[in-house]
């Protein structure tokens, strides 16, 4: 409970800091909405010409966008610190975090809130309301899927940004991998088969982020519902495991620093 209260305070501080520069906050939010709408427009054009992709139609694509951008935005707002994890490890900046008697990974994750995350979240809600994809019955389900997608995105980001523990300065690789996950999560994921399908549910879990939510919204089943919940828990568990395994290899930097 204490950890939770600490995280909430951390989140409040991070959010206040991220919106403190109003002008920059508004520009970034607007640009993120524009970015997502460019991507959305591409698919809109595609589905206008070809009605479906392997059985999925434009409404399903909107569900992907809502869950994908919503989850990604929520991650950037609540767990934005994970995007800096590789840089923190490479530069030896974990020390100030490690000296505090708090959950280390949660502390790092909550240490930053990115204002652009609000742009992603707003895109999700714009599409949710204007796209009319949610009913009274599916609305709570979509919100749950957004939370699940946020946790999976966070977990994969943690795992990818832990690579420097083993591979040294590979920050660029970690970022490219995480950005690719976001991109693939916004593609129709029902088209994969065989080994590629396994990859899409494990190494690049776009399937967990978008396939399961779309299938749930289309045709709810308890099996898929519990698969989604269980997958999310597994990803979170694996992220914690990778981080703490890597931490054993961490070589402290010799620079002074403090967190206020």
């Amino acid at each position: 409970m204490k950890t939770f209260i600490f995280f909430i305070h951390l989140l409040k501080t991070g959010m206040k800091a991220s919106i403190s520069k109003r002008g920059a906050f508004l520009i970034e939010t607007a640009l993120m909405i524009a970015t997502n709408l460019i991507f959305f427009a591409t698919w809109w054009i595609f589905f206008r010409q070809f009605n479906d992709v392997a059985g999925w139609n434009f409404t399903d694509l909107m569900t992907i966008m809502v869950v994908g951008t919503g989850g990604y935005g929520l991650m950037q707002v609540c767990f934005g610190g994970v995007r800096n994890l590789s840089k923190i490890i490479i530069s030896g900046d974990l020390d100030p975090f490690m000296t505090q008697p708090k959950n280390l990974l949660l502390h790092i994750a909550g240490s930053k809130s990115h204002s652009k995350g609000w742009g992603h979240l707003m895109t999700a809600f714009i599409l949710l309301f204007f796209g009319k994809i949610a009913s009274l019955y599916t609305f709570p389900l979509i919100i749950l899927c957004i939370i699940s997608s946020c946790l999976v995105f966070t977990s994969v980001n943690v795992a990818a940004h832990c690579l420097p523990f083993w591979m040294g300065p590979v920050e660029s690789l970690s970022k490219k991998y995480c950005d690719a996950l976001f991109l693939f999560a916004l593609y129709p994921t029902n088209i994969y088969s065989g080994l590629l399908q396994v990859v899409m549910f494990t190494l690049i879990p776009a399937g967990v982020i978008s396939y399961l939510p779309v299938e749930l919204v289309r045709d709810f089943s308890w099996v898929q519902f519990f698969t989604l919940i269980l997958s999310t828990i597994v990803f979170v568990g694996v992220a914690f495991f990778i981080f703490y395994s890597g931490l054993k290899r961490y070589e402290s930097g010799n620079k002074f620093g403090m967190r206020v």
Partner: protein
Amino acid sequence: MFNVRKYYAIFGLSFHHSLKNYKALIGLSVFLITCLIIFAHLWKIAAAKTGVVNLNPEQLLWYIAFNEWVLISIPETQEEVEEDLRSGRLAYLLPRPVSYLGATLAEGLGTLCVNLLVLGAVTFSFTWWQVGSLPFPPLGLIIVAVLGLLAGLLALIFQMLIGISAFWLQEVSPFYWIWEKLLFMFGGLMLPLTVYPQWMQTVAYFTPFPAILGERSALALDFNPFAVAGLFGSLIGWGILGVICLSVLYRKGLRILNIEGG
């Protein structure tokens, strides 16, 4: 001549540094192959089956490989520029007897060249192994290499342009995301350009994106000397425009930096 040697030295340092970081190169190679397989599958389903691509499966894989090769090789220079500006490190870099922009470009070019060489070898070997043949003449391969380098350099210049927007913005990543999405869309990476309405295809040809990705890759498969010359012109033209914008915005930014004290 003296100046060129200084930038060449920076380029050399960056080249060797990137080459020593072989673990990152291995990681990028694995990532490239994964992306290649996924995109090849996506295109096969989403584009080729709908009849909007006039490439056979072998050519399609080469096309995607040439796109991915350059795309993944481009270093994230905008983040380094952003960091220099935000952290105030620029104040320490300015007194050096080299231009900040020139040094950053030389550094980025060093990383780009290593990435292009290593990832090029991986992409070529993997695609050739998958397809079993070269669907273009040997001359096409040389053209692809030269055009790939020019396309990477052009993308680098534009990413530096995004980086220096940090003079005015808290974070440059939203601009980068817009650049990236437009590159994916108009560059013909996400979906083939032929999927879009005619007016969008026309708009795309007035941007640098097809020259960086799709048009360049397609040219390797359908070699045409006039089109190659046109593409060279396009890449160089956009490059000159990018450098002009970069130096103008940089000077404007420096004025703000001076007023605020760095």
